[in-house]
């Protein structure tokens, strides 16, 4: 069967169109089918559209996407949604509220457990120390061991001060 548009090449696309109950059959060749606006010939598997779907799950509709822009690189959240690529490391902080659920739905996890750069290790150790001490503090309060709780509270304060020191050194 020949293409109904150019009448030269063999038709390789056959489709049925129903408009207002009217059934139309069409037969086109590769080239004419590409020019036909009825088809979305975005053949490259569009990754960005996957992101759009993820937003759907997170109850953020396209029309009320957050109107925010990264203060560091100037990328808007809408641009990120179009390309699927963030603009700079700071975008992760600026878009945090909306990115976190996306990251979680991609990976099924929300927290890194792997390698840590050497420069971040001292800071991270202190954060872990605070977390550990906080658990101990809760435990002490629960058991009404207020003397122990006071000691732990002072300890937490000291570690937090150290943490702030590291933060300002790193210009963080």
């Amino acid at each position: 069967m020949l293409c109904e548009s150019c009448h030269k090449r063999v038709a390789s696309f056959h489709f049925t169109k129903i408009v207002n109950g009217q059934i139309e059959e069409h037969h086109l060749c590769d080239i004419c089918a590409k020019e036909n606006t009825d088809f979305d010939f975005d053949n490259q598997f569009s990754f960005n559209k996957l992101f759009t779907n993820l937003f759907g799950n997170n109850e953020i509709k396209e029309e009320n996407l957050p109107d925010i822009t990264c203060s560091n690189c100037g990328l808007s959240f809408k641009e990120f949604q179009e390309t699927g690529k963030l603009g700079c490391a700071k975008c992760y902080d600026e878009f945090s509220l909306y990115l976190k659920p996306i990251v979680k739905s991609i990976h099924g996890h929300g927290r890194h457990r792997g390698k840590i750069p050497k420069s971040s290790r001292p800071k991270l150790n202190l954060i872990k120390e605070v977390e550990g001490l906080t658990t101990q503090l809760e435990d002490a309060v629960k058991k009404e061991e207020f003397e122990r709780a006071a000691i732990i509270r002072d300890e937490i304060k000291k570690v937090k001060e150290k943490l702030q020191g590291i933060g300002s050194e790193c210009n963080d």
Partner: protein
Amino acid sequence: MTKWLDNDTLHQDVVVSSRTRIARNLTNYTFPLYMSVGESDKLTDDILNSMKENYMSWNFKFVRIRDLTPRERLSYIEEHLISPDLVQKIDKSSFLLRDDEKVTIMINEEDHLRIQTLLPGLNLTDCWELCSNIDDCLESELEFAFREDLGYLTACPTNVGTGLRASVMLHLPCLTMAGNINSLVEALRKVGLTIRGIYGEGSEAIGNLYQISNQTTLGETEEEIIDKLNKIITQVVTRERNTRKYLLENKGLELEDRLFRSYGILSNCRLINSKEAMNHLSNVKLAYDAHLLNDEKFDKIIELMIKIRPATIQKDCNKDMDQEERDKIRANIIRDYFLDMEG
């Protein structure tokens, strides 16, 4: 080229190679997609300067994508030394290749840095160790974007966390013949791994070569990712071997006939396209791995598969060719290889 395939290794009858790559970004620069050429030049200088101390000792050569001809670019891709994405931003991207070709540091691919290590056979643990050592060296001079909760920050949220993609290239002719690939795809998906054909599009895998890799990068440690892949790959290898054994025992003559027909075609062809050649070479590799062919030189079939890819042929001959000319040269290369065997 294809030096990275040197050395005898584990499970070489089924596993071709192991690869790890990690994504890293610098804190003070815009990510590659949005950065200007000027900014990318500055970033490249920063990275090269940071490596100066180690540069010579590591034996890396530095290559800018804009300095390569299109066919040289494609040839590096066909040899698995750089990724297709690296040549998308011609003016911004470059790479450092170690002289044994086992390490590539790509600059301004999707992320500022992609460190790739490539070793023959099933060798993910060594791959990761090498990758991590290079990461440590770079990190001592550069400040990588990192957050305690999200790990290493990447341009695409799909790589955030470890930034690690570990993959293994496998030759699975008998699982393919037995129609088991679809169920393998399903099974792997359930444990967070993916499989795809190395060459060819969609589900078609030319030359029965597949790549299995981890899908997610956040929530598991690098060691857990590697360990999971190692365990699964070992199972896939056993399945492939069992299927080979079954086919040899139960359909031995048909299988031998099929493999030796391929041998005949490759020894005598005068014109052969890439797809046909790859599929026959896959059969010859299977015949060698199943001990139906004993010439030891047949353990270099994978190298030959790379050598006959379209861009590599043109690069080796140093000229652009139309398809017929390539098919002719390809047939010559293959016949020479097979004649050399017989001689």
